[in-house]
């Protein structure tokens, strides 16, 4: 089968700016490396050899294109037609491999000999460790010790693949702190190391680079909807932590003004600071990890603690393009809490025989809640599978 490897390749935003958001707020030591990365990515995305190598890996190694699936029983339950973009079927079980494969090919092009990454749920760390094994590059993954506890299976998998998993004990011992530690490692080893950031966050060019590599989700899904559903979706829904699966999905539909774009953030246990991860819905503008975007912070500008039952959404920041889409009104952002995500985890398992990642369960929950008032079709990005979450879900008790 011919697979052209469909990325939506746009020029990088001038100055790395998304309206008032984005930018490059990092220590001077890595500034030249960011310039090099932006230049290299621009050249690579115009190089047919690079693109065909990536496309071949996406097809033969990762399993692209991933299907869209009309979830009949879920649709009946939701009262509207729901389609799922099956990124859970991608190799390693989540959309993260789209980004890791592309960045690893770039790292090799730049002659980097060592890879570092951060991970929350472990899916990005797993994807990076996988791509490193594939290309024979040493890999260090920084992971908060709290997340290592929550995602022990992914830790074991990364180690099986030859990666070293470094426990991060600072701060909240979750994704935020793992990201800070990965950046510190990169600052120290920048000459021979590439930092594979896992979401559409961070200093320019990362938000643009990750979005471009994840745009394969939206570009495929748009064409598949036209072919299989016979129309564009009325609504596209994706969960938003840092926002990489969402921005990749939205990228395919931004120029279709009739398609409503909905990002779903983690409502956690409540609306009080520290109880959720809803940076866009409940945060304010600020700078974290190299970019100006929406941020959960206190009145002194200190970054706030967060909570979500899903490690991948347990992050106080969000990608700058989402901040711009929210400000412009092109996309809207909603909240689903822990309980809703857990219920939906069980619901999709029972109705469709698909165990979703807790992150993705947030997005599906939105479709279930809004189905009765939505003519549809609703297209949901099922960003990953839920094996990694079994311990968390079982610990939460039997389905309601």
């Amino acid at each position, binding site marked *: 089968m011919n697979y052209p490897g469909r990325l939506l390749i746009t020029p990088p935003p001038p100055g790395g700016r998304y309206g008032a958001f984005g930018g490059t*707020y990092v*220590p*001077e030591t890595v500034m030249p490396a960011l310039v090099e990365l932006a230049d290299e990515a621009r050249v690579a995305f115009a190089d047919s050899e690079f693109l065909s190598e990536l496309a071949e890996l996406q097809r033969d190694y990762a399993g692209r294109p991933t299907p869209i699936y009309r979830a009949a029983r879920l649709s009946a339950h939701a009262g509207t037609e729901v389609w799922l973009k099956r990124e859970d079927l991608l190799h390693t079980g989540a959309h993260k491999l789209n980004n890791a494969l592309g960045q690893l090919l770039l790292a090799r092009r730049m002659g980097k000999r060592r890879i570092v990454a951060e991970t929350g749920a472990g899916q990005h760390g797993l994807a990076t460790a996988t791509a490193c094994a594939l290309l024979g590059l040493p890999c260090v993954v920084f992971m908060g010790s709290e997340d290592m506890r929550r995602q022990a299976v992914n830790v074991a998998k990364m180690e099986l693949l030859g990666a070293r998993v470094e426990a991060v004990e600072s701060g909240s011992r979750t994704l935020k702190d793992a990201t*800070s530690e990965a950046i510190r490692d990169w600052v120290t080893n920048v000459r021979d190391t590439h930092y594979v950031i896992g979401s559409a966050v961070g200093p320019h060019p990362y938000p643009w680079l990750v979005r471009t590599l994840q745009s394969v989700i939206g570009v495929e899904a748009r064409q598949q909807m036209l072919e299989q559903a016979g129309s564009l979706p009325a609504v596209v829904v994706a969960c938003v932590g840092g926002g990489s699966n969402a921005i990749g999905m939205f990228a395919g539909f931004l120029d279709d003004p009739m398609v409503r774009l909905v990002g779903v953030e983690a409502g956690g246990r409540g609306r009080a600071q520290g109880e959720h991860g809803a940076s866009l819905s409940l945060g304010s503008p600020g*700078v*974290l990890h190299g970019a100006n975007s929406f941020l959960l*912070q206190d009145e002194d*500008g*200190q970054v706030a603690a967060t909570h979500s039952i899903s490690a991948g959404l347990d992050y106080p920041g969000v990608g700058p393009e989402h901040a711009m889409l929210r400000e412009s009104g092109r996309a809207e952002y909603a909240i689903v809490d822990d309980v809703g995500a857990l219920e939906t985890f069980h619901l999709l398992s029972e109705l469709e025989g698909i165990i979703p990642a807790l992150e993705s369960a947030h997005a599906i929950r939105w479709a279930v809640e809004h189905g009765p008032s939505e003519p549809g079709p609703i297209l949901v990005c099922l960003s990953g599978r839920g094996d990694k979450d079994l311990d968390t879900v079982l610990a939460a008790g039997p389905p309601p």
Partner: protein
Amino acid sequence: MTEVRELPNRVRSVLQGGGAAPHLVPYLMAGFPKLADTVGLLLAAEAAGATLVELGIPYSDPLADGPTIQAAGQRALAQGMTVRLALEQVAEARAAGLQIPLVVMTYLNPVLRMGLMEFAERAARSGVDGLLLPDLPLEEMAELSSSAAEFGLALNTMVAPTTPDQRIVRAAQVSSGFLYCVSRTGVTGSKSGGGDEATSLLTRSRALTPIPLALGFGVRRRQQIQELAGLADAVVVGSLLLEVADAAPDPAVAIFEAVSALAA
């Protein structure tokens, strides 16, 4: 009404025209080891012979800092340190007789949260002389630069061993104080600050700009400082002093002794 400081460039002037030995610049963390230690430690550093002092205002996610300064910042925050309180403590130190120029080192987000203008005004009114923000690169500096200038604050810029020559020139042009040279690729408290990377960066910088050069990150020993004579105008020592202050029964005495020993 805003009070305009009489000596807007004393951060630069105090480091210029020194002798052969580099000035020692102690770095202290506001609210560390105890919340109320700041004023006493600043005065101790001055009494021990420091001609300029750097005061860190803690931030939850300090990307340029190693474990020692991270942990000190976390503790200061847990003890209740804030941007406002740190600036109040600077004003207290001035009222208690602190004379030497003081440069605040912090990160962009707490400054943005207060507002660039309000921060610059409060800092200047409190007796701060200059600013150093390691996560604010040249590309993003214009707005803070004009706020700082309006209130007579010296905005210092940073260069690293990875910084190309033309960027060093730009950093020197943007700086209204000193040029902070990062001794090696890495974070504060790195094991081997100095060495060939530092020498090479200082030599390159000296050939490109006449403004004072301060070297920092990983400097811990008097011998390292002496070896930088003729290369650097100032040397910043941070992590070591925080360790010393934390381990001592009387942090002010310990800072006095440690700074005296390094500056001798």
